[in-house]
């Protein structure tokens, strides 16, 4: 039921009349709860695409002495499930033509949905790498060479055929940050590692005891919508 609510979006309920003083709009058992990722495992990416996304997101947010990188945090899994759902289909976006490129100030103008853009861009990037780097895939390259490819995407210097390189890079980077720092119920931010790294306490809703404690480090562990290890709100 919860899954249906997020897939459909907020505006697809039947029309309703509520008469003042007669009808009660406060319906029980109607909480608009989120749809968590329940089953790990790729739904959208092919094995080849998954290898690319794991490598690319790890370059964008790599593992280091501060903590795990995007791959270990589940960012590729997060992106996969987003692309398999309403986001991947651009279900809430205006997608009618005609399609013009326009100015950067006019924003996203691709006819491709996010899922179509990922599919086309990954294929084109791997083909480009294969032909220019002796038959290797993006994921086989050194970190430095991967970074160079990502920089070229960012600058729009790679021709991806039907896909726009800059648009793809912007989407990949945004989705990577989302997967790193969103609530763990969506499959990323594994063990709240993204939040722990920053010191963000998550889905807490009461900091009244901290208003006067100027300059002190907050000392409570992060919690997600479903709680945290040792305290699970789903009971």
């Amino acid at each position, binding site marked *: 039921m919860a899954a249906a609510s997020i897939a459909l979006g907020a505006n697809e309920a039947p029309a309703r009349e509520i008469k003042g003083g007669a009808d009660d709009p406060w319906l029980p058992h109607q909480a608009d709860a989120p749809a968590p990722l329940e089953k790990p495992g790729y739904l959208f990416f092919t094995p080849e695409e998954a290898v690319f996304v794991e490598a690319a997101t790890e370059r964008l*947010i790599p593992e280091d002495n501060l903590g795990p990188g995007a791959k270990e945090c589940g960012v590729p899994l997060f992106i996969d499930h987003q692309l398999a759902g309403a986001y991947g289909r651009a279900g809430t976006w205006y997608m009618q033509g005609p399609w013009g490129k326009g100015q950067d100030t006019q*924003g996203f103008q691709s006819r491709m949905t996010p899922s179509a853009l990922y599919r086309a861009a990954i294929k084109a990037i791997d083909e480009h790498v294969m032909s220019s780097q002796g038959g290797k895939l993006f994921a086989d390259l050194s970190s430095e060479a991967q970074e160079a490819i990502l920089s070229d995407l960012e600058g729009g210097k790679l021709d991806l055929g039907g896909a726009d390189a800059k648009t793809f890079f912007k989407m990949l980077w945004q989705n990577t940050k*989302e997967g790193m*720092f969103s609530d763990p119920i969506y499959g990323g931010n594994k063990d709240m590692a993204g939040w722990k790294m920053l010191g963000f306490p998550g*889905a807490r809703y009461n900091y009244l005891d901290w208003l006067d404690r100027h300059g002190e480090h907050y000392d409570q562990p992060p919690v997600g919508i479903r709680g945290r290890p040792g305290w699970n709100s789903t009971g």
Partner: protein
Amino acid sequence: MAQELTAAGHDVLALERGSWRDTGTDFAPSFIQDELRYRYQGHLFEQTAQETLTFRNTPDQTALPMRRLGSFLPGTGVGGSILHWNGQAFRFLPYDFEIRGKTAARYGETVIPADMTLQDWGVTYDELEPHYTRWEELCGIAGQAGNVSGKKLPGGNPFEGPRSKPYPTPPMKQTYGPTLFGEAAGSLKLHPFPCPSGNMSQAYTNPLGVSMAPCTYCGFCEKFGCGNYSKASAQTTILPVLMQNKNFTLRTECEVTRINLDGSGTHATGVTYIDAQGNEFEQPAELVIVCAYILHNVHLLMTSGIGTRYDPATGQGTLGKNYCYQLTPSVDIFFDDKVLNPFVGAGALGMIVDDWNGDNFDHTGLGFIHGGYIAGYMTTGRPIETELVPEGTPKWGAKWKQAFVKNYLTSMSISLMGAVMPNKVNCLDLDPTYRDVYGRPLMRMTFDFKQNELKLQDFAMGKMAEIAKAMHPREIKKSPRGPHYDIVPYQSTHNTGGAIMGANRRESVVNRYLQHWDVPNLFVVGASAFPHNSGYNPTGTVSALALWAAEAIRSQYLKHPGPLVRS
């Protein structure tokens, strides 16, 4: 509006395109703190698939559709956009309502450029004052008054227009970041005061008997509904009472697509709306009040063929004229030694200086008019959105990660809420190419920052940098807007104008009571009425104008239906 009219005994039917929403079911604290779902997937926002507009910076460009929300985030559903506001609850200055006259009187007409379509509002601050006060009481606004009936009070805003009463609740408690900002501003002999706040500083019961709870500083205000009943919205201030009124009916998932006129073209017979199943209905009405988001107010008038559309080439026509926005550059501040805990935040938690807003300072020789407030807010530390890294940091990769982690707890921004003056070519009209789901032309927005905004920004960046340096940080980073307006990064949902109010029908769409000049039984309520946008958040003024119009409808129009102002 509906509460004012039903309480006076009139039957009101409200048509809402979105769904019913309420705190316990739709933004409970057990799931509302979800940055992905609400901020980035826009769960409470308008979906562009349902309605959007096309955009271009200048008339020589081809406008393209806003396919994804970005710069502004209109809401949908019961409660509208105020449901997901921050709660920064300002009044405009007396100067704003008489801006053309007061500017010309102080500096001469010649400081107003020929392409700046600057107009007085046809209403004064003094006339709106009781309605600002009533709105603050309905919402329990927390703040420190600076001017009560002409008497200056310490700790408040000395530049504000005289108010008849202090704020109903005391200001919010400031955390470390805003405190540092306030101290720095004070050391520069400025006049810092706490932001007037729609986040409750204490439990409050409003004049309708609706109670709100103290804000817990969770940092999920703007773009979210409040799970704690702590942020003023229709849900937390009016709906519990309105929904008990037997003469009120609400239909949700019903989108008005047209205002219908009779054969004379001067009388509205009602509206046409389409429900979620696609069924079309005609709803008769004696009085039609359009209270959608500003962009939809203007679009609905255009697609209904009411009024004369503005033509920037000739300056003729009024509908779509004086579209304005908000100018929001910032300066990021990075400390080595000060832990700010940015996640301990609230939408209206911050200290403000109003020294460079409105005409609070001498503009002689500056090349621009108006200004904006400068704020040291600590609204949130939500980690996808709050990404402050120093100058020169790569945009991704290992060095980005290190910089983000190093600075997350010890950085903040100070920001300008800059005014935008109307310009001859910044306007709203209908797009020749793109259509919405109902087959209507999309509205077309032509907007760019002009010289007034860019000069104001340069000036304000200097002032913000001075305050930032007085906070003794390790380093600062200037983040200006422009030079061209960009519809992608979020700036503010402060779109204004297009169905503007004024003293005469030649220059405005609605009169001083927000009554349409051509169709007296049609009122158009919202920021669409603003002839320019001030250096403050617009919600307080939208609300005061709505209450002012409601009083005029109740006490004048319904007794003697007809034009309230003779043209």
